[in-house]
């Protein structure tokens, strides 16, 4: 590849990625050369500035025609753009959350934290844009490896180490499985490019290789299920969430999970969405989707029932995030024309409510140095404002009307029942799972409002945490009461048909 071809590409489209890359590089260099006394906490502002800039570049790409660069391995389409917003916003809030995170005796590794998180974000953005299995895999690993380090960033904490160890082993296994699935796909088609794969596969079901295609589908999904922590790869979630520092937990449960959904949508929609299915008049994806439906149902039920017995708040939120991954799979299984909108909206709603809940948790854990459910006891008397904010986030997680969570669920239900025939079983399971989840979410209300506090100390909120709380609460309420503010914007700039088409072609 000579310089001329290299310059031919529309590099300007990659401005959001470059911004993140440059900021991450600058931060790592600064960390290397700055004197030890300089407070690395200020890196957070630089990182957030980078993300904001990247966000602006991304905004300017709205409405841009779909195009591919780097020999059709990297694509810019409505799909990648709309989901990159989620990744950027999520990371921004996580950085804001981490700015005030302090753990006793662990001051030394702040610099790494910020540039590792940016690199992970970059990996997520690459996953959103990739049009080739190789790029996709590079993005996946670029997200995964910094995440392993982040989980274990508190070197002297045994729990953090344990969490990193578990994460890396489970992650390694899942990566291997994913690659194994990819190798089937490559073997069947002789290409790693998603377009070419879809073309070469188009007649697979008529040939004797049908079984291989089914294997490829299942193995790839199982491997990717790790990132979104659904059945069968959910066991790592509670342990890793519990041991990691809270901002990292928040990152894993929001950004990393969103990236997982993006990759699943991209791979399965574009490879299997366009080829003929096992039965007549359906696509391969439609033939196979029942398996994912079963996994989604199991995920929702397992996540919510195990959460009932949890007293450790981080584990509780981990199981709740497993359940939410199950909810998020429902539109994918329903395959309705509304699927993207449902998933996009729910991801944003989920980002606000989960990050808000983690922010409250971080404050309380730091104050009482415990992660038990009882840290919430009497919160309403100690700090009414914090209790009411937590109430908003929990109501949204439980999907009670007036919050973003409800509109998100409504959107999912409408899409799932709109298809012909409607997915009544799946929706019924999701609703029952939601009712089960009421029990543990409302259990926290009992702690906050009915129990008496063990500690009477007033809670002081660092400014950055207050900012996260306010942004998340405002997001949760505004999206719950006036969802039009976001949905109309989405409808205006992102055309459904084009979005669907961009994945199918």
């Amino acid at each position, binding site marked *: 590849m000579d310089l001329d071809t290299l310059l031919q590409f529309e590099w300007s489209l990659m401005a959001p990625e470059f911004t993140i890359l440059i900021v991450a590089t600058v931060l790592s260099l600064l960390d290397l050369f700055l004197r030890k006394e300089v407070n690395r906490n200020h890196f957070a502002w630089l990182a957030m500035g980078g993300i904001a800039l990247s966000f602006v570049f991304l905004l300017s790409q709205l409405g841009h025609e779909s195009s591919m660069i780097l020999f059709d391995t990297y694509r810019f389409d409505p799909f990648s753009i709309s989901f990159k917003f989620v990744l950027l916003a999520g990371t921004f809030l996580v950085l804001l959350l981490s700015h005030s995170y302090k753990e006793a005796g662990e001051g030394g590794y702040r610099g790494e934290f910020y540039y590792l998180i940016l690199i992970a974000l970059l990996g997520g953005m690459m996953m959103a844009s990739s049009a080739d299995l190789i790029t996709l895999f590079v993005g996946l690993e670029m997200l995964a490896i910094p995440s392993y380090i982040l989980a274990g960033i508190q070197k002297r904490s045994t729990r953090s180490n344990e969490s990193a160890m578990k994460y890396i082993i489970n992650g390694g296994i899942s990566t291997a499985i994913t690659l194994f699935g990819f190798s089937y796909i490559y073997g069947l088609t002789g290409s790693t490019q998603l377009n070419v794969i879809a073309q070469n596969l188009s007649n697979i079901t008529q040939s004797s290789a049908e079984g291989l295609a089914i294997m490829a589908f299942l193995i790839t999904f199982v491997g990717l299920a790790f990132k979104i922590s659904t059945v069968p790869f959910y066991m790592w979630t509670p342990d890793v969430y519990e041991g990691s520092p809270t901002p990292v937990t928040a990152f894993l449960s929001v950004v990393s999970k969103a990236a997982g959904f993006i990759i699943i949508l991209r791979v399965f929609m574009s490879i299997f969405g366009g080829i003929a299915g096992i039965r007549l008049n359906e696509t391969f994806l439609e033939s196979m989707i029942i398996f994912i439906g079963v996994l989604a149902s199991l995920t929702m039920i397992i996540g919510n029932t195990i959460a009932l017995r949890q007293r450790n708040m981080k584990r509780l939120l981990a199981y709740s995030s497993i359940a939410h991954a199950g909810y998020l799979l429902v539109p994918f299984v329903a395959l309705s024309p509304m699927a993207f909108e449902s998933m996009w909206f729910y991801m944003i709603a989920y980002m606000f409510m989960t990050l808000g809940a983690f922010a409250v948790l971080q404050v309380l854990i730091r104050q009482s140095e415990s992660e038990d459910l009882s840290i919430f006891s009497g919160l309403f008397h100690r700090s009414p404002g914090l209790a009411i904010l937590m109430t908003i986030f929990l109501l949204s997680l439980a999907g009670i009307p007036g919050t973003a969570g409800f509109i998100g669920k409504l959107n999912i239900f*409408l899409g799932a029942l709109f298809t012909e025939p409607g997915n009544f079983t799946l929706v019924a399971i999701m609703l029952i799972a939601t009712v089960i989840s009421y029990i543990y979410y409302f259990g926290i209300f009992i702690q906050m409002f009915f129990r008496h506090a063990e500690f009477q100390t007033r809670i002081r909120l660092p400014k950055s945490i207050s900012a996260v709380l306010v942004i998340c609460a405002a997001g949760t309420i505004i999206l719950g009461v006036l969802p039009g503010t976001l949905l109309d914007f989405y409808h205006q700039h992102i055309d459904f048909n084009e979005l669907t088409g961009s994945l199918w072609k």
Partner: protein
Amino acid sequence: MSWLSLLVFSPLIGILLLTITPKHNANMAKLVGVIGAVIPFLLSLIVFQTFHAGNELSEKLTWMTLGQDAFQFTINYELGVNGFSLILLLLTTLISLLSMVIARTQVKTSWRSYYILCLLLELGILGVFAAENLILFFIFFELTLLPMFLLIGKWGGLEREKAAYSYLIYNGLGSAALLIVFVALIAKTGTSNMTELMTIVPQLDDGFRMGAFIGLLLAFGVKLPIIPLHTWMVRVHVYAPTALVMIHAGVLLKIGAYGLIRFGLGFFPAEFENMAPLIAILGIVNLLYGAFIALVQQELRRILAYSSVSHMGIVLIGIAAVNEAGVQGAIFQTVSHGLIAALFFLLVGVLIERTGTTELKKLGGLAKVMPVTAGVLLTAALASLGLPGMSGFVSEFMAFLGLFETLPILAAIGTLGLILTAVYMLRAVLNITFGEGPTYPENLRPLSGTEGWPVFILLGMIVLIGVYPTVLTDMLSTTLETILIGMGG
């Protein structure tokens, strides 16, 4: 913004005022709380006036659009009233007001939070009755969940948290069933407007209609409640604070009857006619089972809880008749039971406050020490057992009149329930008023002023409907017509 929106959101004024009242000033909180309940009451009178002057009350705003192009669902903010919902709106504001007046003496802690949650509950109930749109209805329906949970769990009696959880789970499952039906209807028809759906739904295919109908029956069966979905309701009656039970038994449970009539009869008249015998049987089971259980209870609140179960059977019986008299009877029973239950629980609250017990054995001979209270209790019992001249009679009479026309045998079995009602009511109340009892302390306060006037307002309403039922029938006539057109009767 029209009067209706103002009415629905008017409890917010009280809530806002309460949040700025100083935390430790209890008297101020009580005063503001009551004022917060007076505002919706006055507004509901204005709405009533406007409705009768024949002015337009409904309103419509585009709220949100889900999906795009061919798959677009527009969900509007639509409010409106008809005769039935208007009566229930008035009942809601009236009973909430009385309950909050009573709560000043009967609730013992944290008045500020209590009133905030109560007003939030009122907002939810008002919204349910004023909503003209499925999604809006559901949102308001769910809005009652959290305040009820917290009110029962914090201010309730012995097993309050268990009662709160049981409320949460049963109603959560009920609303899950409701949501699935609503969303399926919207996905199928593309509209969420109730009036439009009344004409569209009967054209959908049979299997779908049947499924949706069963879903609705389940959802509102929890709320009504239909046996065997009633256990949560008994727990709430027994362990929730009595002032709250006034609202709960008085209006919250009426959402079940309202939903069955508005959606069940309104959307699925054909299914209703086919399933009428089944619903009548469910009604009779409610009526008899409730009555038999009430007969052996030893505690007043439990008796009243099962009496509520039994009385809601009459609503089902009336609806199952699927004719004008029957539906009218069901609606009358809804209103009448709301008033009577509120009155009963007001008195139970008074009894608990004075004597600290609701056990029948420990309450005998009350007429000697609290003659007025005992007298009112007796009157309420008479109203409840359907003495002519009181509201209970009119509703039972009409419900059975309707059922005799269509299903005479079932109706005949059902009338047994009326006799049982008389037996258990008189057993309980006569035990309390004239029975053998303990020696009461000397200083038992008689019914005070603030307790007195709510009692007499409720009594007055009960007698008024009993002697002059036209007050309700006039308001209902047009509503009934629209519902009955669907039934082809």
